[in-house]
């Protein structure tokens, strides 16, 4: 992502700062997902590189500071608290991603079989999709709440589908004939749970956007 100077940051509006922030966080999220895909392919170098990128990148901190100083001084009336909450919820995505990345770097796992790999890639594809959709939904809050609401509905639907995949994966993991190293088992279990934790946050975030829609939109 293109570096942006302090001066340029100060010029941006609250809406623009939110968009920049969510783009930044989404980019890191996609890096994390791509990193896990490298792990599935047993490309450990790229896996480590991607996850370290997520851990080490902190450009969002500058955006956050610029946003906070702007929102406290802003003359926005009733949506001030909600905009701040929205921003913090975006920040939580980064926290979850960073937490998962740190955990995943603890061990280099080898996946049990091709079917397992395929299914993991499937839920990663879904995670990528809902992460992008959430970014779009957040960007639509300012201009079209109905559209944001509809996107969130799609996110919730995709997350439901992911949940089914999660159970299948866990079921598969618990029913392997061979005795796995306990570390491998634990790692894979936590990997699945980490991915789903992110999906759950995105789902709860989309529910919050839908709450904002019902709060602010007036239907005749």
């Amino acid at each position, binding site marked *: 992502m293109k570096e942006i100077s302090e001066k340029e940051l100060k010029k941006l509006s609250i*809406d623009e700062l939110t968009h920049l922030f969510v783009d930044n966080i989404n980019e890191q999220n996609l890096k994390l997902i791509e990193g896990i895909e490298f792990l599935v392919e047993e490309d450990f170098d790229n896996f480590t590189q991607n996850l370290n990128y997520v851990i080490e990148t902190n450009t969002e901190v500058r955006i956050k500071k610029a946003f906070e100083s702007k929102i406290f001084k802003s*003359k*926005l*009336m*009733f*949506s*001030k*608290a*909600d*905009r701040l909450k929205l921003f913090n919820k975006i920040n939580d995505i980064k926290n979850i991603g960073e937490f998962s990345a740190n955990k995943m770097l603890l061990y280099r796992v080898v996946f049990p079989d091709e079917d397992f790999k395929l299914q993991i890639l499937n839920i990663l594809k879904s995670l990528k999709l809902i992460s992008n959709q959430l970014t779009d939904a957040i960007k*639509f*809050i*300012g*201009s*079209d*709440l*109905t559209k944001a609401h509809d996107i969130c509905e799609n996110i919730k639907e995709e997350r439901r589908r992911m949940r089914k995949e999660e159970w299948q994966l866990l079921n598969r993991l618990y029913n392997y004939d061979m005795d796995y190293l306990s570390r491998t088992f634990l790692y894979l279990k936590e990997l699945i749970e980490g991915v789903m934790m992110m999906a759950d946050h995105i789902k709860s975030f989309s529910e919050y956007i839908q709450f*904002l829609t019902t709060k*602010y*939109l*007036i*239907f*005749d």
Partner: protein
Amino acid sequence: MVSDLTSILVIVLIILAISLAFAIGANDETLSSLVGAGVIKFKVALLIGGVAVGAGMFSFSFAFVAKTVGADLLGEGLTYTSFMLLTVLISSIIWLVVGSFAGIPLSSTHSLIGSIVGVVIVYSFLQGGVNPETAFNWVKLGNVVLSWFISPVFGLIITFVLFKIIAKTYLSKLKGLNQIENSEKIFKWLLLITVIFAEIWVGANSGEALGILYGLLDNGSLNMGQYLFYAFLCGISSCIGIYIAARYVIRNLASQMIDSRPSEGLIIQLSTALILMVATLLSLPISHSHVIVFCIIGMGLAQKKEVDYKGLGKMGIYWVLTFPIAAAFAGFIYFGFNLFGLT
């Protein structure tokens, strides 16, 4: 001796009336929506609101609600004695204080009119030559009581309809948060104008203090010049009441309204102001708080929000009971005065 006592009593009544005007200002929460929306600085809002209430109170003091309370409720040829007015004040103040301590929301208007009815009934029974049937202007009294039921219902209907019209023609067309926020910025300035308009009518319809003074004018204790001077003091007193004492109530309510929309506040305040304006022009003292509660309900119904019918029913019982209890209480106090020859 009697003349001295009467003069002292008149002075006491004037002081109490001015204090009551202060209390009316101190208890006025109309500015909350304005402060909550952050339209203007808090102190400026208090000053503007105070001046509007004071101006409304003084401008309409020569007739209208003050005349209804101070003279027109009584039957032909009957005027208040100073002790009757004192009893009315004591009764309504005690009943309101008890209500406040018990946490019961009461209307000062209902309490005042109830007290007047109680005092006049006892007066007509105890004084020879006064027929209880002719002691009241029944048409006026009937209209006043009827307005207490009609005004909240009209408040609800006007708010409901006004919201539906504005929602259909404008608010529902707003798509994004930025557009909503920008349109609310315009609404907040309209809210400022509406609140000033509402405050004027709140002052104009507050007949409690001026009604007492008008009673003194009607029984000859004050001449018109004196009456207008004290009415002016009442206006200033209510203004000071808002500036000094109402700030706590307003700040407290405003903090709960920070995420409420100026457009909603505008519709509620406009409906309330219209009801108060019509009632004032018809010389009918109505309860501001009853009207505003029903306007809020109207807004809730228009937005398909749930209404707390249980709480509303409880409030309704207190509202209905205020009038007879205040009447009985005032009658009892006035009877006590009579036992000591103070009529």
